[in-house]
């Protein structure tokens, strides 16, 4: 039952991603990416990682993609300004890569499931657990990320300001 749901969601995610790279219109591509990202959130939900699921939707589908779509709409590209669709060669390459990955995946699946399935600990993916991890095991990355974000903010303000 879970496997069926997983394969459906995974198929949606892959399909959305494929649509995203094959659409000529950037906006259609962006909307396909939203589909893919939400499907990904679905996979997180199936893994009982509730917080990550919500963050995925909130941050990617809700905020980042909205900004991406917003920017594309501001640019307001016309049909004739769009680049030519990728040539046949690139398409073949993509398909070949996809086939190679598919074969690899099939071999992996056929070669048997892992010996032991790791047990999901209590409270896995809950807000408390993630919060606790962030302030204990991952304290250092957590602090560094805040500096990274600060630099990003300062940098954007610096580059966008009218006068230095």
């Amino acid at each position: 039952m879970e496997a069926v749901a997983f394969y459906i969601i995974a198929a949606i995610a892959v399909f959305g991603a494929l649509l995203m790279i094959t659409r000529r219109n950037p906006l259609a591509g962006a909307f396909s990416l939203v589909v893919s990202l939400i499907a990904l959130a679905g996979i997180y939900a199936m893994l009982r990682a509730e917080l990550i699921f919500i963050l995925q939707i909130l941050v990617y589908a809700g905020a980042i993609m909205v900004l991406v779509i917003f920017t594309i709409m501001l640019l307001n590209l016309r049909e004739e300004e769009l680049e030519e669709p990728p040539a046949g060669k690139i398409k073949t390459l993509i398909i070949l890569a996809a086939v190679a990955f598919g074969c690899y995946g099939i071999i992996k699946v056929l070669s048997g499931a892992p010996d032991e399935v790791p047990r999901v600990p209590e409270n896995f993916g809950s807000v408390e657990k993630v919060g606790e991890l962030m302030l204990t095991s991952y304290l250092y990355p957590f602090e560094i990320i805040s500096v990274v974000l600060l630099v990003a903010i300062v940098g954007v303000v610096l580059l966008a300001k009218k006068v230095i």
Partner: protein
Amino acid sequence: MERLADYIVYNLPFLQQIPRVIVDLIIMLFFATCMLLFWVALFAGITSWVERRVAGRIQSRIGPNRVGPQGFLQWIADGLKCFLKEDFVPAAADKKLFLLAPYIVFAGMFAVFVVVPFGDGLIISNLNIGIFYVLAISSLVVVGILMSGWSSNNKWSLLGGMRSAAQIVSYEIPVSLAILPVILLTGSLGMQDIIRAQGPYPWQWFAFHNPFTFIAFFIFFIGALAEGNRTPFDIPEAESELVAGYNTEYSGMRFVFFFFAEWANLYIIAALTVTLFLGGWNTPAHLYTNLFGLLHRSVDVAGTFVFILKSLFLVFVIIWIRWTLPRLRVDQMMDVCWKYFVPFSFANIVGTIIWMVLADAAPVLGYVRYILFVVGLMVPLAIAMKITRNFRLAKSEIHLNPFI
């Protein structure tokens, strides 16, 4: 929900043959449909009538009063009319996205109802990420709005969609930040936990807990209005500038879906405010459930009743605001958000943390909530007095009787 599903499966043995997941899914869908038909649809429809009547009274006119008593059935007539209208797609529109957009907007709004706590145990799913879920799902609505705005291939739609996206994305920040003090005080994101953390009496509500939550309450409420594109922040659908904003090109049922979503959102704003700041379904009667014993269920019913009453009152306030205040300019709106709300909500978070530490050390601070409660009471009282005075000054021109 799970308890309910257990109960049903237990009483209907033939269900035990079917895998439990499917049963759960069916029960969930069933309740969702019920919710949609008997609550959201009904509520949205009736609100459309109420809003027009209130608007009429505020503007000293009558409003719809022909269909049914006092025009009460007007919404059914409108709904029927839209049902029968042609589902029109402009020739230049991007057909697929155009057709899809209303559903996304509607689904986003409707999905929020999953975590609205109507009563003790009366919640579709008490997710432990409750309030966070609301923020995430309602941010999805923007995608639908942008989709409709762009796919209509109409400059008003596009402008409306872009304004709406900019507005929702910016106001999401102060709204989320204004929720944080409440989460800090509760220690949980679950909706029921938040309600339980507030006492049954009004001065135990989070709105009056400390000066910072008091401010957070206003920031949240105003920010939520902006997120829902309500006046004074209805710039995305400003009639005088943009025809109707992102839904200009829509007609028939798809148009209704947009309005469905908008009125459903009205209720969501109210319900969230009640849950987070105004005590939710908590009533003094909840203190005495043990005493009454058998009456346990009726206390729950009373709680639900109180919850709905409070949120309906807030819905009325929102409608009232809409027909009283003028619209803000785009830049003013952004100023309010980024220059006032965001810094204030940050200060609120820090202030709440300090307050929590101080309150541990000095229990005297607990009394501040009574002062705040009195201050909070003064606000509606002052407004009421002003209204009465206005009525007295304009004696003859105003019809006080709402039923004409």
